[in-house]
């Protein structure tokens, strides 16, 4: 588009630079001060050191919470996919009473403040006399994130050519074979995308977990507990490590998608 048809772009460019500065300032600060010998804060940063990373490495409580978080994310991913994929198929292919309500209900946890979903589930578990543990967090995340699997897979289904499934059924494959050999492979990009998104969202989730936590902490809750006691660059260190891992995950996913579709697409 030529410069003549759109608004003055030098003003807009400065605005964009400012917004990017605003978005990245905390992240850069976070990473820089993870190497700061004299703690969080103080300007300029001085005594660059790996001290905080060494302390982090020896911090068993953090690593066991990381393990818990990975376990929860993996299990929540399984639950969300196990119910989210059929839900997308159902919305695409079946008519049933309450379909409109169902569609809205599934999407609700993503747009509602986490506290409402968290509290509601807490009441459920209390009425049912279920003890709070990592399992209750898994159920919470798994349920709240079904929407991600459903929307991603539903979008994938809209592009799917049904003739293949039809042919498979005509050639004598049963529904289960057709599902595993035709439907799932055709939807693999949507499914992998949903899985990655659910995994990272679950790793970071705190509002729902806040109410469903038992004795074992997930990483965000472990960090939360420490923040209430005071701040230490150890938190910067673990956050920086996670940031680098997330970047790697995005890059991998992006490559994968680009390779498969030949052209980049919107991620969310």
């Amino acid at each position, binding site marked *: 588009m030529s410069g003549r048809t759109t608004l003055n772009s030098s003003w807009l460019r400065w605005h964009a630079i400012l917004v990017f500065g*605003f*978005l990245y300032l905390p992240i850069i600060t976070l990473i820089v001060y993870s190497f700061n010998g004299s703690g969080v804060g103080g300007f300029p940063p001085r005594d660059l050191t790996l001290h905080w990373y060494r302390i982090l490495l020896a911090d068993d409580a953090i690593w066991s919470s990381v393990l818990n978080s990975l376990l929860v994310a993996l299990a929540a991913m399984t639950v969300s996919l196990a*119910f989210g994929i059929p839900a997308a198929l159902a919305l695409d292919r079946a008519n049933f009473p309450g379909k409109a309500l169902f569609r809205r209900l599934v999407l609700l946890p993503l747009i509602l403040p986490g*506290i409402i979903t968290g509290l509601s589930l807490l009441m459920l578990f209390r009425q049912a006399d279920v003890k709070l543990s990592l399992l209750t967090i898994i159920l919470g995340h798994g349920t709240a994130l079904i929407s991600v699997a459903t929307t991603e897979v539903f979008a994938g289904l809209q592009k799917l050519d049904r003739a293949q499934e039809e042919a498979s059924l005509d050639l004598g494959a049963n529904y289960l074979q057709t599902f595993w050999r035709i439907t799932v492979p055709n939807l693999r990009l949507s499914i992998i995308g949903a899985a990655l998104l659910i995994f990272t969202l679950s*790793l970071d989730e705190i509002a729902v977990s806040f109410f469903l936590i038992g004795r074992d902490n997930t990483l965000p809750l472990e960090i939360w507990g420490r923040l209430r006691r005071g701040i230490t660059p150890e938190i910067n260190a673990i956050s920086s490590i996670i940031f680098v891992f997330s970047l790697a995950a995005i890059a991998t996913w992006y490559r994968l998608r680009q390779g498969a579709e030949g052209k980049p697409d919107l991620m969310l």
Partner: protein
Amino acid sequence: MFSRAYRTAITVPPLLWVAVFLLVPYALLFCYSFWSVSPSQVIVHSWTLDNYRQLFKVNVYLQTLFRSMWIAARVTIFSLLLGYPLAYYLSFCTGKRKELLYQLVIIPLWVSYLVRAYAWKTILGSDGVLNTLLQYVHLTQHPLEFLLYSPFAVVLTLTHIYTPFAFLPIYSTLEHIPRNLVEASHDLGASPWQTFWRLIFPLSIPGVLAGATFAFVLSLGDFLSPLLLGGPSGIMISNIVVSLFGAAYNWPLGAAISFCMLALVLALLFLSESLEKKWSLR
């Protein structure tokens, strides 16, 4: 082409799961809001409107609700002011770098919410990065105390968190505007501002509504940023709910407040959805 058995197999399990883990809990929240707590701290399962009466009688609840809405409104406005021009710039002025810049907006979303709030805390504190920087360059002699533990800190942090959320739907509607419409408007003699106000902005309204709803609703219910950065003057409605479910131990009253919040949010979602529909038809 799909048999009845197949349709049952894909419908019933998700339906049951969602009923048990979403419908029942939300219904339970509603029920709880009509129950009460006995002096011996047992939940009494008899129906009463007392919680709702208390909600309207005790000033602090409504005041905090209004303060939360005011904070959320400011977050929404700032997120749109930051997000809209950015979306416009990316969509219309960047050419080949568009994809890269788009990813740059998304990446902060992958940094934990909690961690970003914490990062702001380390920036805004009285011996934080900003205050020590200001003193280092001799702009101030003493730390500015209003930066942290104030509604300002909460608004700033939430704006930081929800700007990408406001950006995304706006960007997506701008990307869907056919470029030949813009060219046509230019060829017919419209100035860039006229093209913007008469063509681009009206077509982007559904995105603005979606972004604004996201930012408002999610910041309205936030309780972690206020706890971390808000101080006593930055307390929001969800903080009251958290304390009612914790130390104050009055689940029914907490449920009543949550249910009001839920109703408010659903009303907003409904409103924004119908407005979006109206504007998409144009």
